[in-house]
């Protein structure tokens, strides 16, 4: 069977910028950072003070009161993003199409916020009785399952957890399923809600969170800034999307994975390079075709230098002509949702001809001497882009995107 081209026809986002993709892109495209002082209760107990929390998110404006009891924040994010994505795609999912539709979500920590609160009740407050809703709230697939039941989706539905690469692994597998014809439609992305005291203290202990802000590729970068939210994209065969006159944001054209096979936290350029090469090969394009890379770009000392080294390995002299930016400088590091937010940013960048910048940039680092689009968005008509995700544990997942206007 001939492999199909895969279009993105719907995008939904929850982020520090708001509960919609429109608000997200407006912020990211203008180089505005969504990083702000954290909720005071967290701030007073931690060595870092800022985050990209979705502080505006009010579950009551999206869910009935009872459903809020049954869903952890990370699952709520996923459902809200899925609703927006499906609505904007104009797709009516039901009956046979529902059985030919997949949902693949990514999440690193699942419903850990629910766990944190209830374990506190057990250990600190000596509560002896536990609500029966904890298990269904905590399970990592809660978001995927609710999306499945809300839209009548009966095809493959599952969740992948590969730390910071979760969403890219999820989107990549969904892309492959649509391309090969295993399903006709897929909702894919990721969601994360990491703001509980227990998890924040754990991040603090790892000494990778910046005390001020996230400055990817800057010489004085001091670490990542945690973010939260969700991104969901609707994938379908390009031909079918065109036939029904659907809005096409762009194509997902390739997916590559690799493992460093090296270390729990220390990245290896070789592994990152291998995933980028695999994505290019999967898309059937030469490195020279790529114009933009939405970098993993966490803003940690180690990641950014390693990622730039990997880009140079893969692209050689062409690296000089690449635009490389980290939108984590604006929406924070949303962990298992990161790749989904960055897919949304990359698709919008290709479609609008505006490359989002690396915000908060101060001074160049010789170890990151690429054009990192510092601080100001750059107009550029680009056909092909990559979006990198490199997880702790050395798990790398790279997506290749193609602009909607190209290759008709």
């Amino acid at each position, binding site marked *: 069977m001939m492999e199909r081209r895969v279009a993105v026809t719907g995008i939904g986002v929850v982020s520090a910028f708001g509960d919609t993709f429109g608000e997200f892109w407006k912020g990211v495209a203008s180089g505005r950072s969504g990083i702000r002082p954290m909720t005071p209760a967290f701030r007073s107990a931690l060595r870092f003070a800022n985050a990209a929390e979705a502080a505006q998110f009010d579950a009551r404006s999206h869910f*009935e*009161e*009872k459903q809020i*009891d*049954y869903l952890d924040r990370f699952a709520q994010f996923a459902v809200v993003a899925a609703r927006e994505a499906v609505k904007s795609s104009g797709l009516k999912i039901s009956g046979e199409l529902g059985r030919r539709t997949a949902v693949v979500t990514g999440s690193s920590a699942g419903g850990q916020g629910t766990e944190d609160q209830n374990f506190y009740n057990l250990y600190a407050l000596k509560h002896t*009785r536990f*609500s*029966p*809703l904890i298990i*269904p709230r905590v399970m990592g697939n809660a978001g995927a399952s609710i999306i499945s039941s809300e839209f009548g989706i009966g095809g493959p539905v599952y969740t992948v957890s590969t730390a910071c690469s979760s969403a890219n692994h999820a989107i990549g597998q969904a892309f492959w399923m649509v391309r090969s014809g295993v399903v006709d439609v897929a909702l894919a992305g990721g969601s994360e809600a990491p703001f509980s005291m227990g998890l924040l203290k754990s991040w603090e202990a790892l000494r990778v969170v910046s005390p001020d802000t996230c400055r990817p590729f800057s010489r004085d970068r001091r670490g990542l800034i945690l973010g939260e939210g969700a991104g969901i994209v609707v994938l379908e065969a390009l031909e079918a999307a065109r036939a029904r006159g659907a809005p096409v944001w762009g194509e997902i054209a390739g997916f590559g994975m690799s493992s460093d096979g090296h270390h729990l936290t220390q990245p290896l350029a070789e592994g990152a390079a291998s995933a980028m090469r695999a994505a290019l090969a999967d898309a059937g394009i030469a490195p020279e075709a790529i114009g933009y890379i939405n970098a993993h770009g966490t803003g940690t000392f180690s990641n950014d230098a390693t990622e730039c080294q990997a880009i140079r390995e893969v692209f050689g002299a062409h690296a000089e002509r690449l635009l490389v930016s980290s939108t984590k400088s604006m929406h924070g590091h949303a962990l298992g949702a990161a790749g989904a937010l960055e897919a949304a940013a990359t698709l919008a960048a290709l479609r609008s001809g505006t490359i989002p910048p690396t915000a908060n940039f101060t001074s160049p680092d010789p170890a990151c001497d690429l054009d990192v689009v510092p601080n100001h968005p750059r107009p550029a008509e680009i056909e092909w882009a990559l979006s990198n995700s490199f997880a702790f544990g050395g798990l790398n997942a790279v997506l290749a995107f193609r602009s909607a206007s190209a290759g008709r």
Partner: protein
Amino acid sequence: MSHSELAARVAKVIAKTQKIPEESVTLEKTFADLKIDSLDGINILFALEEEFQIEIPDEAAEKIRSVREMVEGLEKLMGGKAAQEGA
């Protein structure tokens, strides 16, 4: 506790858990009428245990399908508990 007092407290717990009006929870309603599914049912048992400071064994809970059965089951359970305490 009188039968009607118990029934009123059960109705209150169910209403609060299901986020539905208290007056909709009457004795003759089945759980299906009130759209109480299996997970909702377990959540209600949890809330009733809190409300009455009792333990509801699984086998006592399994067959309950209506508000009336719930009230009667609790009466039996608490009657038993009271008798034990008296002994």
